[in-house]
């Protein structure tokens, strides 16, 4: 089979799996959040609310698609797509099991980090094209925040890269062959890097407590205030896809990817473990989201530039020293 067709088929499967996952991850988050607030969450549509995501999707499809009269039509209509493409593209480099993935690039993590930072272009287009003061304020904040937090995010993600000595995601996964070698259990450095990664992830995904760009009390719904119907759905899809992708990356970098009991013999089991770990990271992020209030803009910047950036830099240098001392790979 020609490799182009193979890539196409695998890409098609992964893309659809992501879209299916995104719809159900919203239900997972809503149920999880509800339990944290002593509620039940969606319950009426289907048994225990299992059909709720489908009902939501149908509702969004049937909604009227409104374009504001004074909006920049082309930019406004293009923005959701430009926003969605990088969010979907970052799944391309993720290996889901040994040898199972769309494209296992030798600079996989670099590609991931670069493309995931590109979503800001779509975001800014949406906010600018809406011709709405709230949307514009929101994307200004978003750009501000992404510039501040992409550096710590990259530095935190670089720690496992240094420990492995490779930018290839499958190599990083292979360097964590059992529980004791998961990078999150690497003495001191691993835990600090994982915490820094989670905090930077929260900020890069614009989730609470770093959600100043869609602060409901100030900016209505942020940059998507003018969007409705399918375009709104595309933006939601992109956001959740990004969250899931960073959860997968976190699971791969720190939690040993597809490693688990019996995963050596069965690739299916490996995929299952990987999914489980990614969901663990996702729930961790959700847990943080529902525990805190939104913090101020100056506090967000202070946390990034005064705490997270120096800390991750020092961490990276410490890792370099450790690696120089011990040799490049743990395996």
């Amino acid at each position: 089979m020609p490799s182009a067709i193979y890539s196409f088929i695998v890409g098609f499967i992964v893309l659809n799996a992501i879209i299916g996952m995104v719809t159900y991850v919203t239900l997972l988050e809503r149920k999880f959040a509800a339990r944290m607030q002593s509620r039940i969450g969606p319950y009426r549509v289907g048994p225990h609310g299992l059909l709720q995501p489908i009902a939501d999707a149908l509702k969004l499809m049937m909604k009227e698609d409104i374009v504001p009269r004074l909006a920049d039509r082309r930019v406004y209509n293009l923005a959701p797509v430009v926003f969605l493409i990088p969010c979907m593209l970052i799944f391309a480099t993720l290996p889901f099991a040994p040898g199972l993935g769309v494209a296992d690039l030798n600079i996989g993590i670099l590609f991931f980090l670069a493309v995931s930072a590109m979503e800001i272009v779509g975001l800014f287009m949406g906010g600018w094209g809406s011709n709405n003061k709230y949307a514009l304020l929101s994307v200004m904040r978003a750009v501000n925040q992404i510039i501040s937090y992409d550096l710590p995010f990259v530095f935190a993600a670089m720690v496992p890269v240094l420990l492995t000595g490779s930018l290839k995601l499958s190599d990083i996964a292979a360097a964590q062959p059992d529980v004791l070698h998961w990078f999150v259990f690497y003495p001191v450095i691993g835990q600090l890097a994982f915490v820094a990664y989670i905090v930077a992830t929260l900020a890069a995904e614009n989730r609470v407590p770093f959600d100043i760009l869609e602060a409901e009390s100030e900016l209505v719904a942020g940059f998507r205030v003018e969007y409705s119907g399918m375009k709104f759905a595309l933006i939601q899809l992109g956001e959740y896809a990004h969250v899931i992708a960073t959860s997968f990356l976190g699971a791969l970098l720190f939690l040993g990817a597809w490693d688990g009991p019996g995963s050596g013999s069965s690739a299916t089991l490996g995929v299952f473990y990987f999914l489980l770990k990614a969901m663990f990271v996702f729930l961790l992020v959700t847990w943080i989201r529902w525990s805190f209030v939104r913090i101020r803009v100056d506090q967000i910047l202070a946390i990034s530039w005064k705490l997270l950036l120096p800390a991750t830099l020092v961490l990276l240098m410490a890792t370099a020293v450790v690696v120089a001392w011990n040799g490049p790979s743990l395996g």
Partner: protein
Amino acid sequence: MGPALDRRLGASPLGNRQLGQSFWPDLGNLLSAVTRAMWITLLNLFRKPVTVHYPDVKRVYPDRFRGVLALTYDKETAEENCIGCRLCEYICPPQVIKVEMLKTEKRNFAKTFTLELYACEFCELCVQVCPTDAIIMMKSFDLATGDRRELLLDKDRLHTIGLQFDPSWATGNGLRDMQTPPKAPAAEHAKPAAEPAKPAPEQVKAEGKAAKVEGNAE
């Protein structure tokens, strides 16, 4: 300002220390606050939800719940309690009750009794004035209907509602009995009420002096 008030004004969500003093205490405060917040949500995660599945499961109504209005029967003779006196019609602030009296030899009845529930404000005044406990409130708030006309309650509907739900605790006679002052000590009540009027001016003067003295001292 006392130390208690000081503490209350200075209390921050991160504990007693304010942010911006120095790096390490700030970081410690931040971490302890993060841990506490996440611990609370984690505890909640493993608690049972407090939600009641409303239409399927109903919460027990409180004893003094006052809901939809209804007419009652006498339990022994199976006669209507309403004597058609129209007191409720006269007192009703939004004027939603209309009663016509039917005069008979022994006692009177309500010939018609309509209550426009869609305009009722549930003030309970009709219950309070009713001399025969005929109109009472029930323990129910399920008043939603698809048709506004269903909320125009006639005598039959009101009687049906009276049989359908549990009656509330309050009845006209019960409420009036509660509010009647006890008769024997009624005379004593009048005296102490008049006394505290006299010393009041003196107190004001004394306070005024004290304030002046303080003002001079400053």
